[in-house]
């Protein structure tokens, strides 16, 4: 078998080749079953979410024309933040995954969608769908493991730069959409000289700058100017209030999406893989890697909607192109599969998972062997995942 978890206490060591093959077959069958059942109900769902989001954004921006009036600022900013989060998560992320391509509606299609984010959809699809989803949690291949600026696995080499990573992570959260754009451009590699600046990079950089320009002009110039125009007796305060509302809405969206995404692969109990472990990987092994390399978030309907159903990260990683609304219906069967094969379904409420991910960022800012105990998986996590609890000991 080639799914070799690089640690001595490999969480999939007990699985035989046959087990993995059976898991693969079972998941293939489940995928087929769900796709055969897709129909009007799912189509209605995504159209309803899109319509709701558009009215919410339109309404919020309308209210924000009068953002100089504090209650309007509060209502409008909250509405715009929610609208942006819905657009990025349940709508944009999922459409760009091709989850709704089956409807053959050219206006809700992975090849035509552009999202409310400074990262151009085309480039994000490459770095996210192609690199991250294919090489999930493979150290050195999956750039999502720390986004190239952080050390989130014991096997990533420590450098003094990592001492600052709690701060880097906080800044990345605040400016997450720019972080994603820089990351899609692989800016870090060019900066470090690992990649040569060529025509392709320049072309991509121009695309990013163009998109940033359009997004900037909309949020920080035109809407404030529009607010000034409708409040001619109150020009400057009106423009500034709308401007600040847009800044806060973008900030809220950035922090929220960053937090949700951190919960997907950073919390304790999630396995990582070495480059060599995926050579000659079968479909079944790929599935198993997704299963032990992702973590869910528990919560109610609102949590699932606002996370774009990335609260079902495990299910999403198994079937990235499955309409998000179906993840909740297959989750019990996926959990059952985990149980039958003695695998740990990592999940927890949002605050706990965010805390766990942050704790990892903080403790790995220090070298592995600095204080012994520092790098130990906290006892709290032992309850979640007993077989992995002693792995760092």
């Amino acid at each position, binding site marked *: 078998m080639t799914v070799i978890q690089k640690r001595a206490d490999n969480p999939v060591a007990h699985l035989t080749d046959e087990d993995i093959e059976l898991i693969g077959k079972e998941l293939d069958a489940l995928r087929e079953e769900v796709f055969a059942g897709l*129909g009007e109900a799912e189509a209605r769902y995504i159209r309803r979410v899109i319509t709701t989001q558009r*009215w919410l954004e339109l309404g919020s921006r309308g209210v924000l024309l009068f953002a100089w009036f504090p209650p309007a600022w509060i209502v409008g900013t909250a509405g715009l933040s929610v609208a942006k989060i819905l657009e990025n998560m349940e709508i944009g992320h999922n459409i760009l995954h091709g989850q709704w391509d089956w409807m*053959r509606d050219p206006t809700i299609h992975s090849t035509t969608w552009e999202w409310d984010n400074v990262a151009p959809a085309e480039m994000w699809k490459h770095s996210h769908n192609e690199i991250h989803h294919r090489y999930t949690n493979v150290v050195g291949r999956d750039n999502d493991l720390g986004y190239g600026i952080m050390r989130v696995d014991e096997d990533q080499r420590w450098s003094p730069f990592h001492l600052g990573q709690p701060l880097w992570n906080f800044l990345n959260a605040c400016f997450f959409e720019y972080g994603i754009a820089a990351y899609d451009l692989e800016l870090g590699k060019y900066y470090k000289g690992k990649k040569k600046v060529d025509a392709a990079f320049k072309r991509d950089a121009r695309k990013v700058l163009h998109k940033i320009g359009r997004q900037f002009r909309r949020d920080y110039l035109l809407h404030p100017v529009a607010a000034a125009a409708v409040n001619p007796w109150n020009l400057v305060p009106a423009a500034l209030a709308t401007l600040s509302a847009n800044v806060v809405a973008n900030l809220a969206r950035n922090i929220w999406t960053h937090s949700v995404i951190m919960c997907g692969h950073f919390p304790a109990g999630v396995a990582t893989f070495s480059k060599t472990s995926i050579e000659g990987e079968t479909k079944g092994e790929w599935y198993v890697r997704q299963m032990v390399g992702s973590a869910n978030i528990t919560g109610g309907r609102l949590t699932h909607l606002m996370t774009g159903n990335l609260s079902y990260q495990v299910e999403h990683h198994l079937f990235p192109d499955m309409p998000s609304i179906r993840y909740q219906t297959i989750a019990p069967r996926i959990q059952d599969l985990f149980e039958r094969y003695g695998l740990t379904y990592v999940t927890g409420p949002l605050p706990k998972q965010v805390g766990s991910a942050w704790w990892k960022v903080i403790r790995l800012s220090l070298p592995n062997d600095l204080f012994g105990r520092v790098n130990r998986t906290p006892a709290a996590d032992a309850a979640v995942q007993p077989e992995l609890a002693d792995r760092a000991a």
Partner: protein
Amino acid sequence: MFLTTVPRPTAVPERVGRPRPRPRDLLLRAAGALTTPLLPTDYLDLVDPLRSGAQLRGRIEQVRPETAESATLVLRPGRGWRGHVPGQYVRIGVDVDGVRLWRAYSLTSGPRADGRVAITVKVIPDGRVSTHLVRRAKPGTVLQLDQATGDFHLPATPPARALFVTAGSGITPVMGMLRHHLPSLRDVVIVHSAPTAEAVIFGSELRDMAAVGRIRLLERHTDRDGLLAPEDLERLVPDWVDRQAWACGPPAMLDALEAHWAEADLPQQLHTERFRAQVVVTGDGGPVTFARTGRTVEADGATPLLDVGEAAGVLMPSGCRMGICMGCVRPLASGAVRDLRTGAITTAEPGDGVQVQTCVTAAAGPCTLDH
């Protein structure tokens, strides 16, 4: 000299050349800076999907059963509708079980002051769209619409003597012509085939026209009388050689009629309308055409189209090569492909707007990628 009481509707010709941007377009472009990455039209569609300037759509206003197997849908087309010539057809995009499917239907409405148009649909066995439209379509539903098109219509100068040979739903384009042009037609014979008298679409309207002597209607009920053979026409319509003829029905009937008219050396007197074939050849592998690259290669049923293209030297977009990243999605212009993961067949005809993941689909018959 004919007196036409109903003016012959004419489709407005498409604008040629690049028109100067209208103020409304300029305004929309400016508004786009406020709505980016969405377009202002995305918001306007929330309010009025049929407005002028929108993607052409139509709203179903009425669903009227015609026979047990057919129904007429009265549509209010969007304001971009350029009108039609009776006998023409329109392509409509309908969401069936969440999937947008496109089909063409003849326009059957007569002249209407209210701008509505009608199509008449007959259920075909295993026809997803026809079954949906006849049995489940609801007033209020918005459909996607194309402009009317087709050459199957009467000439500007109506023929002195006309013959229509139709079968089944082949009556639909002819009904559109009759409802508009009957007052300007002096001598009309219709030979129409249907399984039974009850199965004749527009049966009572046709019989009423015949009763008042406006047309000569020759109904053939094929369950009892058998299929119409071209030779039967000699007996039924002895002066057929003196008539301009329009025929619409199953391909076998049209083939036979064309041969018959050709034999009489009168092919120019017969005009036929073939509803587009719904059957796409499916099999295991087949010739794959990359339309834009202009290359056709033979492919087996197990090799992904992506590999087929690359092997043929076509520059293909690619990504994960395992069906998850959508980096290789290209439009399937026509033909059939098989999903290598599930075995499911996807078929397409021009205009269907079908896109496929080339890394996990293989040819299942002749197919053309718009790439």
